[in-house]
């Protein structure tokens, strides 16, 4: 038998052997479904760890209105407006957190000088049909000076533009562009 | 070889074309004439004592206040484990510098990036197009005086 033909059969044997090794690994999982790792989400919810950075909350009653959080926020997700009340204390009248823009980095929580004033909750399931619902309003809203209405605050979101209508049939022409792409 | 020796070797070889030696940067940098950059780079790569096998990085810098643009080449040697930065000063209004693509092929993309973001033109470059931004983008965004555009195609920026 020549060297070449030996290689021919050896290669074949090796290939078959390695294929069966691989099949051995998978059949181990195939026959014992107990090794599955799936957590059935809506029924089984894993409690997030204590430090989990979920939704941001403010205890507005102890907020001193120092605006440290709004200043450190790298994305301007916190809109904070303060006014001085009769005791010359700063009161946060508007405290909006845009959860759709927040990047959950935790810089604001660290910057907040008051304990447990600004904090993350373990809440993470708050998807919504509209972006406006994702803005949480915490502001006291009691405006000592009525000449500054709440609507005055800079709207963080521009109104969503009307995209193409839903369920619009896509036939014909739309594929021209696809063709150019060569895809 | 440490940076000082590299600088001395260079200034002996390229008399008059080396402008300055900055020791306080990390790694130490040598400011050179923009015309000489290709010669210096191929010297640095070929010379067995130096052997800067790879270009680590190439960055553009906009020094708006001084009316200058910088191109900084970070070079490193695997064999000798030393690093150095070469700096080239360019006119901010008309930044031109020869390409070092022939020395290190990897420089190709870095130069395209510097062109894309700063508008620095690399002469004799084989394929100087925008790389990160779309081809129809206007302006050089990393310049300090860049004004953000208001609209792109059919939507607001």
């Amino acid at each position, binding site marked *: 038998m020549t060297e070449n033909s030996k290689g021919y059969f050896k290669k074949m044997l090796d290939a078959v052997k390695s294929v069966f090794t691989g099949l051995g690994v998978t059949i181990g999982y195939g026959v014992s479904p107990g090794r599955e790792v*799936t957590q059935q989400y809506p029924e089984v919810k894993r409690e997030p760890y204590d430090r989990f950075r979920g939704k941001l909350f403010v205890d507005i009653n102890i907020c001193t209105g120092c605006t440290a959080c709004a200043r450190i926020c790298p994305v301007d997700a916190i809109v904070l407006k303060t006014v001085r009340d009769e005791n010359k204390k700063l009161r946060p009248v508007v405290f909006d957190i845009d959860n759709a823009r927040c990047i*959950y980095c935790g810089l604001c929580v660290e910057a907040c000088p008051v304990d447990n004033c600004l904090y993350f909750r373990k809440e993470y399931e708050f998807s*919504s049909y509209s*972006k406006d619902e994702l803005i949480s309003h915490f502001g006291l809203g009691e405006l000592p000076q009525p000449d500054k209405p709440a609507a005055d605050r800079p709207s963080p979101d521009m109104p*969503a533009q009307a995209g193409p209508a839903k369920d619009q049939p896509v036939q014909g022409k739309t594929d021209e562009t696809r063709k150019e792409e060569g895809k | 070889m440490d940076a000082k020796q590299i600088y001395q070797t260079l200034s002996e070889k390229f008399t008059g074309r080396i402008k300055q030696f900055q020791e306080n940067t990390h790694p130490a940098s040598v400011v050179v004439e923009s015309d000489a950059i290709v010669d210096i780079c191929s010297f640095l790569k070929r010379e067995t004592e130096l052997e800067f096998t790879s270009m680590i990085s190439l960055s553009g810098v906009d020094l708006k206040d001084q009316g200058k643009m910088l191109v900084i080449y970070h070079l490193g040697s695997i064999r000798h484990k030393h690093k150095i930065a070469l700096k080239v000063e360019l006119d901010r209004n008309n930044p031109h510098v020869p390409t070092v693509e022939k020395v290190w092929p990897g420089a190709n993309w870095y130069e395209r990036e510097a062109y894309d973001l700063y508008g620095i033109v690399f002469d004799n470059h084989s394929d100087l197009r925008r790389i990160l931004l779309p081809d129809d983008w206007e302006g050089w965004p990393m310049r300090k005086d860049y004004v953000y555009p208001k609209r792109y195609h059919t939507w607001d920026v």
Partner: protein
Amino acid sequence: MGVLEDRLPENILFTTVDKFLNWSKKSSLWYMLFATACCGIELMQTGASRYDLDRFGAVFRATPRQSDLMIVAGTITHKMADRVKKLYAQMPSPKYVIAMGSCANTGGPFYKDSYAVLKGVDRIIPVDVYVPGCPPKPEALIEGIMKLQERIMEKKTLVKK
């Protein structure tokens, strides 16, 4: 279904048929394998063993032609935006979009200082559900998909609107 759509009066039979049709739509949300940035990894992990989107009948398809759901997972830049529009146009209706993560919702981290990022994917295509998070936990994405399923169940296909 083009002939019958939105034409039939509302009665028990047609409403039941409608419910059945909606049930089939919601139970088989094939999502497009479309991921741009960080959220794409979480999208993959949602489809992987621990969270297993396949439980809901949601599998990924590589081609937009066979997908029902586009999960915009990640940052959309201006350079990419045209492609997203095209991909959306290539999907056959009924089609749904989930904006996953802050970037797709509003531009997120790049809202303020970036010149290159599209500030919210809803500027170019209609979005059904916004999932907040940066990136959202896989559980949050599944919750978003379930919310979309609720919405699909409310829709009327045959019955007059």
